[in-house]
């Protein structure tokens, strides 16, 4: 669109025609204050904070609804504008309690900031402020009506951003208030977007409220350890404890988006059943031992089995870092001399990498003109990816196609919906051929319904459309993709995970951050070593249990569902635990393995080796260090890896494997997993 020239406060500003004045001013470095205006959401023009003088207009104009025009002359710094701001703030404060000293938002409150900059300093209202008691809408969301300034950001982010519309504005005028779907309680994703977007302390979260002050926390930006979407979450840490997660600085691929898991489900790390000391099995059950003794026990047995040419099995994790995955497979292959290494495969990434087709980034989901979602309930299982697609539909009118077994939330924004029986996904996709071929470009997302041969057929279908097509293979957990690309897969006759569990003749089984006994029975009586945070089903059966640090307690990199590599930042420590990488190193050293060949067990050293040896991972370290995301690839398709069937963990918004079971917040919400939305 053509640019227009206008003048704001005497400064000549150029902006595309139709840009809103408030945006044009902000881009030129001129702040026009606003509460209700929010980039990316529908216009409201309710708060009247953005009033400015426009030459030839008879009265003050709202900058949030006024498109710029050629020759427009705007003044934001006149006495009349200053008076308007002052008066609006006086109104906003009529009933707003001045409980800033105890309010959660104190110190990071937009109303505080605005009154500080533009407010009157004193009020002419002498009347008693109306009080309404605080309400608990869910264990996550609390509403304090008197603090609410009725900007309706929460209502809009819930309806537009999340596609849920759990909040409304009831009544009108001075008696207006925000109300949840069910009158007194919420029925929603419990994502907390409404809380973070609230400019004041009207909406507060059950995990954070009245616990600490914002300035008393350290704010550590790291990657959420729950699903595979790779959202940046900025953890608020005080006294070695996570008090909240949010992403108000919009760093990371997710901008300000986070679901309940990224915001509130970090509490698993502080669960009282967290393992804090190594355990070794004795005749009367587990005996707590020192780290030195535990490592000695494991290394001793491993060395002995290695020496007599015994049989090892290694099961890696889809939560641990790339560095840990890489080091583990190297240690297994060179140190233990086994190719029996695998992890719980939740999506057929391997087949997609082998198809050598372009892979989509999370940003592509927001920009692509068309998106096809095959065989997955995206809003339930990949909340961020669904958010991106919904934003794309809202902002760019993207055409969305769904091929699914039952109703999904994306149906509401779909250009076409295809219902299929299990196994009918590819045939369903085929019925969309004519429509898809007319699109200028396409991103295809598929879950575990498409695997093996079907992936090849899907990519052949994509290639035959004659348009640029990119793909996303949906996987669960924070580093499933990385586990594949780092080679936590069997090669050359090595056993897959189900084969190892069923073998019966393994001498040792080493399980790192996984719980295979939940899905498989273990045949035979191998020496079982488990590294985990909790005494899972698998850990309960172990001979040695080593308490591991969670992703929030370590550094390293992870690769999200779209292949974007991002850096974890250690946010705090849980004394007694060690990172998996350190445990690997200690075992290797104790076994007397060739440490020169294995390399140092520090994340940066291992990543340097990954960059040299893993195709597609020679990534700019400085971008990662600065907190950026870089898509890995192209991969060489891991020609040596053994293919095996995959199965999604089937987690929903309110479950997250082992970690989810130990998150009190996830288990406290009333929404039944997966049964939330009929349509």
């Amino acid at each position, binding site marked *: 669109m053509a640019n227009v020239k206008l003048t704001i406060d005497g400064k000549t500003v150029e902006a595309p025609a139709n840009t809103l004045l408030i945006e044009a001013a902000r881009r030129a470095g001129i702040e026009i204050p606003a509460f209700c205006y929010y980039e990316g959401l529908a216009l409201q023009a309710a708060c009247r904070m953005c009033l400015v003088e426009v030459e030839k207009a008879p009265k003050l104009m709202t900058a949030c609804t006024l498109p710029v025009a050629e020759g427009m002359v705007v003044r934001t710094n006149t006495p009349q504008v200053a008076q308007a701001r002052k008066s609006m703030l006086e109104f906003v404060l009529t009933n707003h309690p001045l409980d800033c000293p105890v309010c959660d938002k104190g110190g990071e409150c937009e109303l505080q900031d605005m009154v500080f900059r533009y407010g009157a300093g004193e009020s002419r209202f002498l009347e008693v402020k109306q009080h309404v008691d605080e309400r608990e809408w869910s264990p996550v969301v609390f509403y304090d009506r008197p603090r609410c300034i009725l900007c309706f950001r929460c*209502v809009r982010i819930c*309806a537009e951003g999340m596609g*849920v*519309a*759990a*909040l*409304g*504005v*009831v*009544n*009108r005028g001075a008696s207006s208030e925000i*109300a*949840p*779907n*069910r*009158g007194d309680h919420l029925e929603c994703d419990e994502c907390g977007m409404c809380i973070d977007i609230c400019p004041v302390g009207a909406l507060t979260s059950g995990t954070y409220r009245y616990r600490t002050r914002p300035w008393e926390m350290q704010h550590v930006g790291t990657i959420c350890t729950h699903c595979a979407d790779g959202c940046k979450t900025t953890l608020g840490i005080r006294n070695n404890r996570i008090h909240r997660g949010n992403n108000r600085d919009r760093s990371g691929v997710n901008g300000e988006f986070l679901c309940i898991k990224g915001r509130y489900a970090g509490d698993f790390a502080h669960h009282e059943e967290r393992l804090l000391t190594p355990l070794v099995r004795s005749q009367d059950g587990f005996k707590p031992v020192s780290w030195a003794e535990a490592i000695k026990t494991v290394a001793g047995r491993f060395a002995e089995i290695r020496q007599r040419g015994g049989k090892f099995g290694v099961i890696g994790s889809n939560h641990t870092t790339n560095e840990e995955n890489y080091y583990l497979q190297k240690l297994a292959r060179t140190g233990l001399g086994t190719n029996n290494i695998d992890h719980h495969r939740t999506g057929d990434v391997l087949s997609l990498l082998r198809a050598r087709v372009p892979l989509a980034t999370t940003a592509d989901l927001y920009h692509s003109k068309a998106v096809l979602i095959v065989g997955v309930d995206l809003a339930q299982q990949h909340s961020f990816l669904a958010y991106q697609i919904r934003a794309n539909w809202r902002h760019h009118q993207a055409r969305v196609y769904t091929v699914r077994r039952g109703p999904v939330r994306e149906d*509401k924004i779909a250009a076409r919906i295809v219902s299929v029986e299990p196994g009918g996904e590819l045939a369903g996709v085929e019925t969309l051929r004519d429509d898809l071929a007319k699109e200028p470009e396409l991103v295809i997302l598929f879950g575990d319904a498409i695997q093996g041969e079907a992936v090849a057929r899907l990519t052949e279908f994509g290639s035959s459309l004659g348009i640029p097509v990119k793909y996303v293979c949906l996987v669960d957990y924070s580093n499933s993709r990385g586990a594949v690309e780092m080679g936590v897969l069997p090669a050359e006759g090595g056993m897959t995970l189900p084969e190892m569990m069923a073998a019966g003749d393994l001498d040792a089984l080493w399980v790192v951050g996984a719980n295979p006994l939940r899905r498989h029975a273990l045949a035979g009586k191998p020496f079982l070593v488990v590294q985990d945070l909790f005494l899972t089903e698998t850990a309960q059966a172990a001979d040695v249990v080593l308490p591991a640090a969670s992703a929030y307690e370590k550094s390293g990199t992870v690769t999200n569902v779209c292949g974007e590599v991002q850096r974890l930042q250690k946010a705090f420590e849980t004394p007694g635990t060690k990172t998996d990488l350190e445990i690997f190193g200690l075992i290797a050293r104790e076994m007397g393995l060739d440490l020169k060949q294995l390399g140092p067990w520090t994340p940066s050293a291992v990543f340097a080796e990954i960059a040299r040896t893993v195709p597609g991972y020679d990534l700019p370290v400085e971008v990662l260090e600065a907190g950026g995301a870089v898509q890995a690839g192209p991969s060489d398709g891991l020609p040596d890896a053994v293919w095996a069937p995959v199965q999604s963990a089937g987690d929903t918004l309110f479950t997250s494997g082992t970690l989810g079971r130990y998150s009190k917040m996830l288990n406290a919400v009333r929404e039944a997993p997966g049964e939330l939305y009929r349509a």
Partner: protein
Amino acid sequence: MLTPEEQREIEQEAASYPERRAASIDALRIVQRRRGWVSDEALADVAELLGMSPAELESVATFYNLIFRKPVGRHVILICDSVSCWIMGYTKVRDHLKARLGINFGETTSDGRFTLLPIVCLGACDRAPVMMVDEDTHLDLTPARIDAILERYE
């Protein structure tokens, strides 16, 4: 559950708009005409039928003071409390109504006959004070006339 007639009528209205939700006010009125008011259950049913969340439809329902979200009597009295009526003796008429019916604003008589509500200007200031009972407008009200008017509504 909405009755088949209610559903059919709402569908008819919805078909005349490009967006189904645009029929939300009509739909609420359809339900209210048949039931006298809109219950939480009816609201949720209408919301589902129009592809909205209950919270969204509630925003519409509570914005309009003539959509009743609580049960009302067989007849609803709307008495104007705006400035012209006030100048012309609204307070006397109001007090008489309250005393005669034995209720306050927002309440319903124990026999379920009348609900009394205030309303803003009814657009008949030249004949103030004014009130409406159901669909009928009553002009030039005096306490004495009120009694005769109420007799007409069983």
